[in-house]
């Protein structure tokens, strides 16, 4: 759990991101991540989860733009920061791993070279020290024969091993926050479980905070203390993972629970969330989930719905939250 006596590692407030021709893709997103805390950001593709984390990394695509909002990393204001500031922060205080590990590694350099380079440039280690530390890090992320792996090229490694190398690079400079954007999605389940265990272990040993961005509610259930559910560019529900999964308050979270894996294999009718999410930037006066929600009434579509604080760190954005209290999930 976050330590209340220290300030949060990452604080994002009222973040609005638009893409292309002023299409608002992320609407007034606010959240914070405490020191050593693990937070899961869950949403389907197009929900704005990846844009949110890219904005927090200063890595928005060329067509993307932060319209307003603040991003503060451990006291450092990153809102409108210069490229130079971002470069100082990324890799040292902010680490990141993404889904397609192979495309983040240089195919023509050994993976050890790439990790050692990071240690020499960002931490000023000597060639020998960087090599020694790199081998230690490879061992720490669970690569067998770390000395051998040091001299291997990315194509000689499996997807799971490449992801471990990237994690080693991401944590090499002891960042305060590690952002993992669908980092385990492309991996086989057995390897996925190993990588999630590894992230959890690193969080403990390095005092790292973790922002896990995924479309998979089940992955968050296994890994994160707190959860943020995003839908069509807005946070629709947040709270501790245990609370949210036990008693989801937003109908979208309930629907996600319905379609998620429950670990039983008998033949049954599968639940479906009817309809499609709205397209990016679609102007909707009220709740953005209303067209797909079985509880929607006029009150839902008439005006903006605020993210209501439910106490105990929980919040949900539903106009009918009081009516639906105790409604069957």
């Amino acid at each position: 759990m976050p330590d209340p006596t220290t300030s949060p590692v990452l604080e994002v407030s009222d973040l609005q991101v638009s893409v292309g021709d002023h299409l608002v893709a992320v609407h007034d997103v606010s959240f914070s991540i405490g020191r050593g805390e693990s937070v899961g950001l869950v949403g389907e593709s197009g929900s704005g989860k990846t844009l949110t984390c890219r904005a927090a990394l200063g890595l928005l695509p060329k067509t993307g733009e932060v319209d307003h909002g603040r991003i503060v990393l451990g006291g450092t204001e990153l809102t409108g920061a210069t490229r130079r500031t971002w470069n100082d922060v990324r890799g040292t205080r902010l680490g990141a791993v993404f889904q397609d590990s192979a495309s983040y590694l240089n195919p023509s350099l050994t993976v050890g070279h790439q990790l050692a380079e990071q240690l020499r440039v960002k931490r000023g280690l000597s060639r020998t020290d960087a090599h020694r530390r790199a081998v230690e890090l490879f061992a720490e992320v669970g690569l067998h024969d770390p000395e051998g792996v040091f001299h291997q090229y990315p194509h000689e490694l499996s997807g799971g091993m490449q992801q471990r190398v990237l994690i080693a690079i991401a944590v090499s400079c002891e960042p305060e926050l590690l952002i993992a954007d669908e980092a385990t999605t492309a991996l086989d389940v057995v390897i996925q479980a190993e990588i999630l265990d590894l992230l959890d272990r690193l969080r403990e040993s390095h005092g790292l905070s973790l922002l896990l961005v995924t479309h998979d509610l089940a992955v968050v259930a296994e890994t994160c203390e707190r959860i943020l559910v995003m839908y069509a560019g807005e946070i629709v529900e947040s709270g501790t993972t245990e609370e949210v999964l036990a008693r989801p308050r937003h109908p979208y979270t309930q629907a996600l629970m319905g379609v998620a894996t429950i670990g039983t294999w008998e033949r049954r009718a599968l639940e479906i969330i009817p309809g499609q999410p709205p397209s990016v930037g679609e102007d909707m006066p009220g709740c953005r989930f209303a067209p797909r929600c079985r509880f929607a009434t006029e009150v839902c579509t008439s005006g903006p719905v605020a993210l209501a604080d439910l106490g105990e760190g929980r919040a949900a954005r539903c106009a009918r939250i009081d009516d639906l209290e105790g409604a069957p999930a």
Partner: protein
Amino acid sequence: MTTTQERPDVDDGPEARVAPLLRVTDLSVSYVPPKKGTSLGTGAALTEASLEVRPGEIVGIVGETGSGKTTLARATVGLVRPVAGRIEFAGQDMGALRGRALREFRRSGQVQLVFQDPLRSLDPDLTVAALVREPLDIAGTLSRAERHERVVESLRLVGLDPDAMLDRRPRQLSGGQRQRVSLARAISTRPQLLFCDEPVSALDVSNRNLVLSLLDRLRRDLGLAVVIIAHDLRSLAGIADRVAVFYRSRVVEQGPIQAVLERPAHPYTGLLTASAPSVTHVDRLRPDQLRPDPEARSWPAHGVCVFAARCRFAHDACTDQPAPVRLADDREAACHVAGEWRALITDSKEAS
């Protein structure tokens, strides 16, 4: 839709006495020709795999990348030639088909494939009408009007509105719609067997269950046998009757899905189910209870059980690859300690 009445039994899963539509026996495939006098060696994509699929049945094939799942589908439609073993489809030996006969069989569209990413497997320049009609054009058995009628009917079967869809191109469709167009294309020839290679892996949760339910309905409406190839157990939830677990070119366990995934007999199946994340805290094994000691013994490269190096329960007997053994509940597993390993698990966390 008319076939539903003729097959009243499929609702509860096909019965074992129905003759299999596809029978694969001891199939071995190698992409690297084996050297003289040696066994299959490292090029083996599939080793002595056996599998049966009955009409109206959904069989899941799970395993990691490179475990031979797709190779089995490719061999069945004749895209790769097996080194050994036999493939029978509807009683016919596929190995005996050559040249013209093989081409004719493929054109008839009795076996169809559906791929993971419809954006890459559907021609972006063709309209939905042309995409769904193409297999019928190739089969060449229907008149122009009949083909059009079949296209419209196929789109309806996958729950798409033909009037709105016919003139669209793949880019103008959502991910779920695209995958349904792939399905409409695959069923337009009214196949008996459908191979779906990772049909829902690229889809969001909302669309995943939609496509899976659709497969379930198609097998009932059309009496279709479906093989779902997946690296992810979620792609089978709720619809599969049986499952075959592949590991490094071998079928390590197969049987009714509930028996296999809820009470795994092979340690790899156990590791697979323990590793699958879940939103509920079901009572289950933890992956760390099944992972081997990292300092465990090293195993010779050949002849040894394919899973030995990653198996916590590997022992001396495992230097010989076990053959599949029949177990209770109509299932089989290739393991020297099939089912017995559970008793060896200690509940301590020392391995983590």
